[in-house]
């Protein structure tokens, strides 16, 4: 197997983006990856971990800054003819009919109209859209639209099919159907595709489809671990072997970098990517863990089922309670720390105090904001001040999201407040009372 040239080969791939103040921000670092013929590989990781960027490097949409990216031994310098992609948002042209959307790529390659039509018809028929050739995308349901997305990719007879969360915009049943249809085409060799790669947030989906599941870690993105799925298709999600693998993936996903990769976990810094979790959600999660049947310790897949949350949202919550020191994660399980138990048992006001204490101790960004506000005479600071600092580590969008998150946490903990219209962070009002005298003596001007 190894003697053969792999379909895709990435060696030490590195990708950096430039921040507005001309500093470099690393998104991918030392990524090694190979896709062999006949393989389906799934990429798992938290949102913002660079999976999508990696997929775009393979697709030839983004150029890496270092390392090698080879398709059948040739460097990828732009979109390659043998690689097709299916998008999370479908990315259909609303003014083109189903037929025209599917023909678009062939048309661009200069395929003759009659051949184009034949191939498009075959693809449309194959993916189960027969009869809808003349419809516009807006007339179709989400599932049908993604079928157009697949037909458009498959009509190119791609060697490699890339799927960027292709199923996450669909409801559970529709996604299941589409996955099965795709796997059937693949197994019965009705499509010439030799390898598939899917980026996914859904662990079950990854284990259901892939031969290998790669776990991605973030900041900077690199491959943290790999789990082989040695099960025959079609797979039964309820079988013990399947559950076992799902458990393993959960375990590896939640393991901190220290335990898995060998590299020491980065110390927490200002630019730590706060998970997308609200205090109320986290409180609910902690309560669920404290209550029966879990009673303080929960198996992750079981918890996922009990909360009915999508994996992505769940991991954000896990990460939130973990960094705050309210819960800990160990191989596939989550359990409450003493502080976590105290939090669940406390009254609302006690919860807030406890949350505030942990927030200031564990999250450097929150501590920094509070210190700046304390030091300033008017106890106010514009948000740009912190956004700029964050942008040394995170993209502009992520910086805003992280600041929004810390504001939500800080508001819940009542350690600072935020004026939306002015875009200014400030101390909460009662806190202001303590400093009123100082402020009255020497009114405003901002010293920074």
């Amino acid at each position, binding site marked *: 197997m190894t003697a053969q040239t792999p379909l895709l080969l990435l060696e030490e791939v590195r990708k950096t983006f*430039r921040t507005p103040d001309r500093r470099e921000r690393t998104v991918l670092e030392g990524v090694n990856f190979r896709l062999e013929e006949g393989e389906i590989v799934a990429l798992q990781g938290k949102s913002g971990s660079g999976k999508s960027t990696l997929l*775009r490097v393979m*697709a*030839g*949409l*983004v*150029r890496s800054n270092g390392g090698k990216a080879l398709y059948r031994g040739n460097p990828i*310098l*732009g*979109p390659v*003819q043998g*690689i*097709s*992609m299916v*998008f*999370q*948002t479908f*990315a259909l*042209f*609303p*003014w*083109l009919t189903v037929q025209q959307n599917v023909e*678009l*790529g062939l*048309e*661009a*390659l*200069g395929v003759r109209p009659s051949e184009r039509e034949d191939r498009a018809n075959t693809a449309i028929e194959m993916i189960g859209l027969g009869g809808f050739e003349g419809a*516009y*995308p*807006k*007339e179709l349901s989400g599932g049908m*639209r993604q079928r157009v997305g697949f037909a*458009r990719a498959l009509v*190119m007879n791609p060697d490699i099919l890339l799927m960027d969360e292709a199923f996450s915009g669909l409801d559970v049943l529709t996604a299941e159907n589409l996955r099965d249809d795709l796997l059937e085409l693949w197994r019965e060799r009705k499509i010439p595709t030799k390898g598939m790669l899917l980026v996914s947030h859904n662990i079950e989906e990854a284990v259901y489809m892939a031969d290998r599941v790669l776990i991605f870690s973030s900041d900077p993105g690199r491959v943290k671990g790999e789990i082989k799925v040695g099960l025959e298709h079609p797979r039964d999600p309820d079988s013990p072997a399947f559950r076992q693998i799902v458990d393993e993936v959960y375990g590896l996903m939640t393991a901190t970098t220290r335990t898995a990769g060998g590299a020491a976990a980065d110390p927490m810094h200002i630019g730590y990517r706060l998970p997308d979790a609200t205090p109320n959600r986290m409180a609910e999660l902690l309560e669920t863990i404290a209550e029966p049947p879990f009673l303080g310790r929960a198996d992750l897949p079981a918890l996922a089922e009990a909360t009915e949350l999508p994996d992505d949202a769940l991991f954000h919550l896990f990460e939130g309670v973990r960094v705050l020191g309210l819960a800990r994660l160990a191989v596939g399980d989550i359990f409450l720390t003493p502080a976590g138990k105290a939090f669940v048992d406390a009254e609302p006001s006690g919860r807030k105090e406890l949350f505030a204490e942990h927030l200031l101790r564990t999250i450097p960004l929150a501590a920094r904001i509070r210190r700046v506000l304390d030091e300033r005479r008017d106890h106010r600071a514009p948000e740009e001040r912190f956004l700029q600092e964050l942008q040394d580590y995170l993209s502009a969008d992520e910086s805003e999201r992280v600041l929004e998150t810390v504001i939500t946490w800080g508001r819940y903990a009542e350690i600072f407040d935020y004026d*939306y*219209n002015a875009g200014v962070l400030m101390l909460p009002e009662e806190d202001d009372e303590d400093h009123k005298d100082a402020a009255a003596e020497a009114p405003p001007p901002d010293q920074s």
Partner: protein
Amino acid sequence: MRPFLPSTIAVSPDLRPNLWDAALLPIMFGLLALMAWGALQMDAPYDVGAPLPLSLDPSNLPYYLLRSALRMLAALCLSLGFTLTYALLAAKVPALERVLIPLLDILQSIPILGFLSITVTGFIALFPGNLLGVECAAIFAIFTSQAWNMTSSLYQSLRTVPSDLVEASAMFHLSPWRRFLRLELPFAVPGLVWNMMMSVSGGWFFVVASEAITVSGQTIMLPGVGSYIALAIQERDLAAIGWAILAVLAAILAYDQLFFRPLVAWADKFKFEQSQGEDTPESWLLTLMQRARFFRAASRLPHGLWRGLLNVMPRQSVRLRPAATEWLLPPWLDKVWNGLLLVALLIAVGWVSIFVHGAVGFTEIASVVGMGAVTALRIIVLTAVASLVWVPVGVWIGLRPRMAGRLQAVAQFLAAFPTNLVFPVVVMLIVHFHLNVEIWTSPLMVLGTQWYILFNVISGASSLPSDLKDAAGNLGLKGWLKWKRFILPGIFPSYLTGAITASCASWNASIVAELVTWGDTRLVATGLGSYIADATGNGDFPRIALGIAVMCVYVMAFNHFVWRRLYTLAAERLRIA
């Protein structure tokens, strides 16, 4: 879906022209023939100074109307061509974007009417001894009233093409040319069509104002509705004014039904939405065209052209370039470019100051700035008054869905109506009642522009989400509290759009509104508008330049310091998602 058209006829299998063809063919060929004949009339020998035969006989009106409508069409085509070139360059070449976009901002705030007498001289020189020069000058004036908003709309669209579709086009190997035709242009169509409609609606005003052009003390009257009106005003013929109003109304209606309705209905398919909108715009003409056999067959021609256009550029494989450096100049060249721009700017400022200062002293410059303040005050007060009147009315209409649809169209229609037609009536009233000219000519400025406020408020109020309406009712919100907490914040973004359009158009209107005539009666109100109008009448170029420059500065200052801020506020706080 379209119950008034029997659909069975359209599906009959034989190849003979069907009933729809019978209805459509005469309409289409009639229009084509009229246009061709009208266009031929433009090319006529002419020397400056020779009087053009013009008659107030109403039977000539259809002909004049045709000429005016053709001018409008020519200007629209010109605007479209300009838009495509300018917006494309600005969106694709960063080095040019730096110049073109601020320039567009300035162009948008230039009072077109003041501009006219400068350009006409050039055009006449271009076609000596032929009326085509004057014709071109008029078309150019209409063009300048139409092009800018279309251009900025296209530019905005090109910059906001959804990134997933851009990625998909790259993934499926579309060349830049194909991407433009398949993705960027279609994405821009709805905005562009809407802006074309607004442009034509605003354009009628300039058609009327630009046909009677004063050059070196002489008035040239091109055959057209505008000149007809100018003549009627000279000769104090009230009946003729009435006829002209009717004619213009007919023209607006025809443009709407024969041109824009089909266009809007067609453009609906390019709307970037993932689900079908509730009510799709319809046009009887487009439906007719889509059902008539002849036209379905004839549509193969544009189809073929479109296909040819798609394939006209060679296919090229897309190569990856680090995205930001696309078309970017190397750093040293960038500095040189910036330097050149700076030098050009300094030279221009210096030249204009010398030119203006040669004829005008500093005290006059100061007084012109003062006149600008007077006009600004008029516009502020009148926009406020118009808002006080039309916001409640617009909300009242907008909250009644059935009325809203119909009356919004009426308001749009009124906005298109060139109000300079009714100025004579106001002049007569002022003279008859001995009213104060400074105050009573002012309403003329907002006479035409107030409708922008009305129809935007109607559309804002009618799109207030019904769950919010229910909630407001359920909470017992009433009276002022309901207005303060629900209605006013809810309609603010739409109101703002209307108010901005209205105030910008009012600046332009001030040039015709502050100096009005009726026969020998001449009413002049102090202000920047009358200053420019007066200078234009005398062919005094330095003063025209000064007046235009000052007005430009005022308009831009208003845009930057008032409207843009309010707009950001509205966009951030009050947008109902």
